């Protein structure tokens, strides 16, 4: 099963490589990973999407907790949470295709953020599933490039992951 693990990490050089190194050394897979600083400049917030059996996920969480640079973490998948990913897609479109693509973008609540005579660049935010669906709705041959941010997530309700 897919798990979204949200981590407060010391904002130290090398902290990211400790996390990445743990996953490669122990053969865990990373589906996506995002990281940036928080309102507290000494800490970064990382969101990591991984999958595996319950036993593997338990090990991943324990091993992450063991890293000295990991301050706190939560498996978002265990609770009600919101997840979002941002995607930029550059799509070939000219002639009658352009109208069709605009409609599709509206249906998915995306925005066209750059236009050339032969292309549209679409920005789209949502769950990973929604982004997948948008890509599927496009004609494969028309996609010039896709850039996805990886998933970020946050728990619902008034509690948060903080010190």
């Amino acid at each position: 099963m897919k798990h979204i693990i949200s981590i407060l990490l010391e904002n130290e050089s090398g902290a990211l490589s400790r996390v990445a190194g743990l996953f490669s050394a122990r053969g865990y897979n990373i589906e996506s990973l995002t990281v940036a600083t928080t309102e507290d400049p000494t800490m970064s917030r990382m969101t990591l999407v991984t999958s595996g059996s319950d036993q593997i996920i338990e090990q991943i969480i324990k091993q992450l907790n063991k890293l000295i640079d990991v301050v706190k973490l939560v498996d978002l998948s265990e609770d009600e949470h919101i997840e979002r990913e941002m995607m930029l897609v550059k799509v070939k479109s000219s002639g009658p295709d352009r109208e069709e693509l605009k409609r599709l973008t509206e249906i998915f609540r995306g925005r066209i953020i750059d236009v050339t005579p032969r292309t549209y660049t679409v920005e789209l935010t949502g769950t990973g599933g929604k982004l997948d669906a948008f890509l599927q709705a496009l004609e494969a041959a028309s996609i010039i490039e896709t850039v996805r941010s990886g998933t970020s997530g946050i728990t619902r309700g008034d509690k948060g992951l903080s010190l």
Partner: protein
Amino acid sequence: MQQQSTGAEILTGAEILARSLKDEGVEYIFGYPGGAVLHIYDALFKQDAVKHILVRHEQGASHAADGYARATGRPGVLLVTSGPGATNAVTGIATAYMDSIPMVIITGQVNTWAIGSDAFQEVDSVGITRPCVKHNFLVKDVKDLAETIKKAFYLASSGRPGPVVVDVPKDVTALTAEYHYPESVNIRSYSPVEKGHSGQIKRAVEMLLAAKKPMIYTGGGVVLDNASEILVEFTKLLGFPITNTLMGLGSFPASDRQFLGMLGMHGTYEANMAMHDCDVLLAVGARFDDRVVGKVEEFCPYAKKIHIDIDPASISKSVIVDVPIVGSVSSVLTDMIAQLKATEVKTDADALTQWWNQIEAWRKQDCLRYDTKSDIIKPQGVIQKLHEITKGDAFITSDVGQHQMWAAQYYGFNKPRRWINSGGLGTMGFGLPAAIGVQLAYPDETVCCVTGEASIMMCIQELSTCLQYGLPINVVSLNNRYMGMVRQWQEFFYEGRYAMSYMDALPDFVALANSFGHVGLRVESPADVEAALKEAIADTKRLYFIDFVTDQTENVFPMIAAGKGHHEMHLPAHMTAERDLA
């Protein structure tokens, strides 16, 4: 950051390092100089609180510091230069990491401004060591140096211990700062749990009391936590059988009737059979290593499992347990003893008697019996003699191979911290430098390095260090002219094709020992074993290198092939013969 002047001394980074080590109570630092650490060497030269031991190869420094740590329980410390100094130490760092040994490694680094420029003798030491340390630091500001050293010692020796690297650029050792060594440090992300969960402990005690075929299996965690006495009290209270892992030997006296010997790949018949048949298993400070467990699906198939460990990540990593207890071994066992003493419930005496009868029947098969009449030296016999002469009280370091297993099986350790070997990484070359660390820590004790003629060659240069510091180590080399353990696997699993396992062109070890300034003896007859060992041990001034010419064909029994169950042992001939008759 603006720092308030506190009237503290202003010292260079190098001086801060030396003073921090002193204030940390460091007795010995093992090392080897080089460009990046010259300021530090200069600072060490000008003081005499911390004694520097010059090794002959940085791998030797890392094993010596490790041996010191294993024997004393205090962190071992080493100092190496950047680049090749650091990479040479990596094998020793990984060795310590696998066995959770507290160690602080100071590596020199190129100047901060040169980092990343492929400067002379630059390697990314933090990157290279990252997967084999508990934590590591690169100190970029001299103001952080003292506190970083404190953190390194704290991390190395608390919780599940392990090596910690502090990488110090050369310019940081020349710049100055106020010296203040913190008494304690707080790391916000790090707070090892000492006390076990009381509800879990209660469940565990109930489970143990209800057991009909209980078994206690303990590992290096007991040694690391100095919990041997508590373990003995606990085990005596229950009257249960107990086995130790390779790393746990000595934490329960081998001479005690409740002790079934080591378990696992080269464990005794009785220990492995009891593991296989038990109905409640208590694992204490042991990590269910693959050499212990064998085939996971067939590991203790009938048992409910309880696991005490300081490291939550060790619990249910390979074998799923029923009652996990996170905490230090001493704290959890103390709580369990209190509960056992308080409860009215007794162990099932009838069931236990039956269980012990079964165990004694297994034990009677005498799985460690070997040919004592042979006129070729049997390696097991050398170890038994060593045990007799030293009354089981010596510090025994070892290398890796058959000799290591024979030392583990036949020495009969009665005290913890006396058996010093590389269990997790299995590092050939460990034994001699480790013995240096042990002998320095205990100058008046007998220290023996049980080795093989292949392993000893991997750090042979340290014989020179032994001469320099006058260390009267006894090197007990079981010379079978083979990489014996490799040969054994080839005999069992490769139809006797002994690919590259013969040690051709061996040196004359007696002459070699002599040329290093030590005493060398060659022993070829079983009749001479005792006299040679006695001579070596009686001489407390000089290092003896005894080259025992042993039986080339001897194998380590019992043996569980990798990935097999505990009941599927290769057994010695006398046992298989009896079984065929039956």
